[in-house]
């Protein structure tokens, strides 16, 4: 039986190649997109799932009221948290503290020097996290103060000799943290491909504590990340409510509450809104999966519509088979077999396509995707193909087999208006999805463009950022002085952190006339150079900047507008703030400028003129003289860092990196929207071709009776154009709501204008019109004598 079905399927293909082609192109391209999205989603959801402790491994977050009515979430904690967790919280089995070294550190052997990233971690790090140790004992690798564990790649790059360089020494230097010491390699680790973290070396947390000023260790100074392994059986909900006040109990002035979040969840659910994990990458994972599914459905609809539209061609076969004794079920089976075969065939094409374009896809998604040939993957793929076949075959199968044999053999297809309604509904659905995607893509692009061109309150153009490392650690001021003498350099300064990641914060400040409420304020807090405000082009609102100030004068502070407003200071200049330590006098107020991404509102900010903990050098250069100036800077850099490549970034490029995931999603959805409209039009083309053929005779008779070609054209094409217009009307309100929802995440967003939506709708309409026009015109222009003679 199956053999016969297959034979008939093949003959049908050769008889109606264009329908087969439309279905094949539609199904295989949508399956390609399903497979690609599947690979992408799979890669996203397995991130960090390799940790053996993933069910029990938590990260410790702090929620701090931001004084604006909601909570800000921080992952940094005081280093005091480690012993507290280890000794005072019975539910915690093990805990580790991690201090991330800002930027790059220099790893040096006698003859090699490599910039690399890493962190300090307390003893149990490799017990909590399952980064495999190729050498070394996970219980002891981080025990000695001067121990270091390096990655396999680092080991290979630094030491060319065979075997692991355990026991050998390394010099590690980092400017910002004043680190410079000799370390002994105690172990080699490897980073699994599905790890969201990437790092080259790990030092002992003891070393970090050793280098810290004892005065800097208190509950208000948050520098480290904390991770804890909870005992099995501990309910996280009740544990979280129990642990909430941990910090407040230790430090009565501290406003932070503690929250444990599952570490393995952090990658996908990486955004916090008002203290709750909400969305992040998971949103895009879900969104893209839905879009891929919809594109597949659009292709399935093409199959359904073309099969039912062409029912007359198959209806005799069904009638005859029924007369000779075929039961409905066996006919349904036959049609499902055909659609499943088509889907499987399309899947094979899709498989080849995926193999072909995977490198390109990896590139636009910024992932290293692979297409492994495994049984389970093949089963998944086969499953998708079969389900696709069943979905697309279902409606035609039931539609075609429901007629009575006798009416079928009389050659008339009982045309119930219901079938037309379904077909029209399906076309409307296809175009609704397409229009929705077009709207989505254009809104995403416009918002990204808006963000990129928004006035940030500082001038990010022509600013070069240089990491403070190696030779710049001790000679930063000299370097900057000499840099300022280069003709193309407008100004130069330095800062703690960088302009796109400004995460240091301080709290518990006191000032005269402070309200109870404002005691809770957390300030973003950065050390900056005297020329910082001028170099960055930040405007002063009142008072003066740090220019000509000597760094490390602990008596002065500059705040931003928001801070002053929230503090309720009428005359800020001259007011003295107690910053738990030095008292500082406000000498100036800057107009608000944006740091971090535009998802977030501007927060209170304090700029302190200090040269400690500086990680970034900022050089403003003249527009138009970039090449010459950079060449000169390179020379200067080499003078201070012989043998080290001049590694710099443009600030505006760095800024774009903030929206990398949006940009990737945008470029992905661009292709998806294109595909959706293409497949929809392909289906429309098939339908039009077919109805034009069917109605040839009608057109001929009408023309004989005096209808003009243009009238005939209108008659043939208007039907489909109406459907696309209906799709527009249905979709636009939905699109509006969805766009509004997405944009509401941004603190700064584009206003929604009606023409964005009309534009998307019209785009779809125009494309559809072109699709319809050709075939309709051909039918409308055909000579009536020809068509009538054929009868």
């Amino acid at each position, binding site marked *: *039986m199956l053999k016969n079905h297959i034979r008939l399927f093949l003959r049908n293909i050769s008889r109606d190649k264009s329908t087969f082609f439309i279905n094949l192109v539609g199904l295989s391209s949508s399956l390609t997109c399903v497979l690609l999205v599947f690979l992408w989603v799979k890669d996203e959801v397995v991130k960090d799932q390799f940790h053996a402790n993933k069910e029990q491994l938590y990260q410790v977050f702090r929620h701090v009221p931001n004084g604006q009515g909601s909570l800000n979430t921080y992952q940094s904690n005081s280093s005091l948290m480690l012993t507290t967790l280890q000794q005072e919280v019975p539910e915690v089995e093990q805990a580790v503290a991690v201090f991330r070294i800002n930027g790059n550190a220099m790893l040096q052997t006698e003859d090699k020097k490599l910039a690399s990233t890493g962190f300090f971690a307390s003893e149990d790090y490799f017990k909590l996290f399952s980064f495999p140790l190729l050498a070394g004992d996970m219980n002891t690798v981080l025990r000695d103060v001067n121990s270091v564990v390096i990655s396999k790649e680092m080991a290979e790059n630094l030491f060319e000799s065979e075997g692991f360089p355990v026991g050998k020494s390394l010099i590690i230097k980092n400017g910002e943290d004043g680190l410079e010491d000799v370390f002994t390699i105690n172990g080699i680790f490897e980073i699994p491909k599905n790890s969201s973290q990437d790092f080259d070396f790990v030092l002992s947390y003891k070393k970090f504590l050793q280098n810290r000023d004892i005065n800097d260790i208190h509950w208000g100074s948050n520098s480290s990340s904390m991770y804890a392994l909870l005992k099995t059986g501990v309910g996280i909900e009740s544990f979280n409510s129990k642990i909430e006040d941990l910090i407040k109990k230790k430090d009565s002035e501290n406003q932070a509450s503690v929250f444990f979040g599952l570490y393995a969840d952090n990658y996908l659910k990486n955004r916090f809104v008002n203290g709750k994990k909400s969305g992040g990458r998971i949103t895009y994972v879900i969104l893209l999966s839905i879009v891929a599914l919809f594109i597949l459905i659009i292709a399935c609809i093409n199959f359904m519509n073309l099969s039912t539209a062409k029912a007359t061609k198959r209806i*005799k076969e069904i*009638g005859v088979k029924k007369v*000779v004794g075929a039961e409905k079920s066996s006919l349904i089976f036959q049609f499902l077999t055909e659609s499943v075969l088509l889907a499987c065939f399309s899947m094979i094409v899709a498989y080849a396509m995926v193999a072909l374009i995977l490198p390109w896809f990896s590139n636009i998604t910024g992932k290293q995707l692979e297409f492994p040939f495994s049984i389970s993957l093949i089963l998944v793929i086969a499953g998708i193909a079969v389900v696709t076949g069943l979905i697309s075959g279902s409606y035609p199968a039931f539609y075609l087999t429901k007629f009575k*044999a*006798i009416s079928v*053999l009389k050659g008339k297809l009982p045309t119930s208006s219901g079938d037309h309604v379904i077909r029209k509904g399906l076309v409307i659905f296809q175009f609704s999805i397409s229009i929705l995607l077009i709207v989505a893509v254009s809104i995403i692009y416009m918002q990204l463009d808006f963000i990129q061109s928004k006035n940030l309150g500082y001038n990010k153009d022509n600013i070069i950022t240089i990491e403070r490392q190696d030779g710049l650690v001790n000679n930063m001021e000299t370097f900057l002085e000499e840099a300022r003498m280069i003709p193309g350099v407008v100004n130069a300064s330095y800062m703690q952190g960088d302009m796109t990641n400004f995460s240091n914060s301080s709290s518990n400040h006191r000032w005269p006339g402070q309200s109870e409420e404002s005691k809770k304020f957390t300030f973003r807090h950065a050390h900056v150079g005297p020329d910082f405000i001028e170099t960055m082009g930040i405007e002063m609102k009142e008072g003066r900047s740090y220019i000509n100030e000597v760094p490390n004068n602990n008596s002065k502070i500059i705040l931003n507008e928001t801070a002053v407003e929230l503090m309720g200071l009428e005359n800020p200049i001259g007011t003295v703030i107690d910053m738990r330590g030095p008292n500082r006098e406000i000498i100036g107020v800057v107009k608000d400028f944006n740091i971090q991404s535009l998802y977030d509102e501007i927060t209170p900010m304090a700029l302190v003129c200090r040269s400690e903990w500086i990680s970034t050098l900022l050089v403003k250069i003249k527009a138009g003289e970039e090449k010459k100036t950079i060449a000169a800077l390179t020379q200067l850099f080499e003078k201070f860092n012989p043998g080290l490549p001049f590694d710099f970034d443009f600030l505006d490029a760095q800024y774009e990196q903030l929206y990398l995931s949006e940009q990737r999603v945008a470029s992905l959805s661009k292709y998806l929207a294109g595909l959706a409209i293409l497949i929809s039009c392909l289906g429309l083309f098939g339908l039009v071709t077919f109805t034009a053929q069917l109605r040839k005779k009608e057109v001929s008779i009408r023309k004989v009776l005096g209808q003009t070609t243009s009238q005939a054209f209108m008659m043939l094409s208007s039907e489909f154009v109406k459907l696309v217009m209906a799709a527009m009307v249905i979709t636009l309100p939905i699109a509006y709501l969805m766009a509004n929802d997405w944009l509401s995440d941004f603190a700064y967003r584009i206003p929604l204008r009606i023409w964005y939506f009309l534009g998307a709708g019209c785009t779809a309409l125009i494309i559809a019109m072109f699709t319809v026009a050709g075939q309709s015109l051909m039918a409308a222009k055909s000579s009536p004598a020809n068509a009538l003679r054929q009868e």
Partner: protein
Amino acid sequence: MLLQLKNIFKWVNSGGQRIFLLKDINFEVSEGEFISIMGPSGSGKSTLLNVIGMLDGFDEGEYHFLDESVHSLKEKHRSNLYKEYIGFVFQSYHLLDDLTVKENLEMPLLYKKYSSSERKAKVADMLDRFNIVGKKDLFPAQLSGGQQQLVGIARALISNPKLILADEPTGNLNSKQGEEIMELFKKLNDEGVTIIQVTHSEKNAAYGSRVINLLDGRMI
């Protein structure tokens, strides 16, 4: 007795009016008969044949087929009955264009419980019996009308039905081809197959043993 129709009425409702397609049809058919149904165009011949062949239902009356009451049978049961005992021959042959002669013959067997080797044997037997072995791999479009109708009849016969229903089997053929088909029917009838045919031709009707005349859905 093979089948019996008692007071069969069939109607359609059109514009609030009841239009009768069959009115008070009564007759019996014994095994081995060769019956011709005649009447002017539109008199209900095809309708009656379809009712007998259980392809179409009726609104009133009783229909017994081999001791089964067709009017009270479930759809499933009825289709089993008809699958087993009835074969159809059409004026326009209704062969499947995409299948070869051999495959067209084999098709009815696919829906019954025959093994592949049994199917092969039966098809070979039929091809032999109708002298069309040489045509077995041709498609219907490559055959003449008479040859196509031969295949149509062979297909109707392949699962050994007791009753052949033929709606103007010679309608699309020239007179010589028509005669050959009628001779074939005669031969089959002699072998014991019951035949009911619709025809417009007195000459064809003469091959049969009895004629039922219809006018406006009524027997006369």
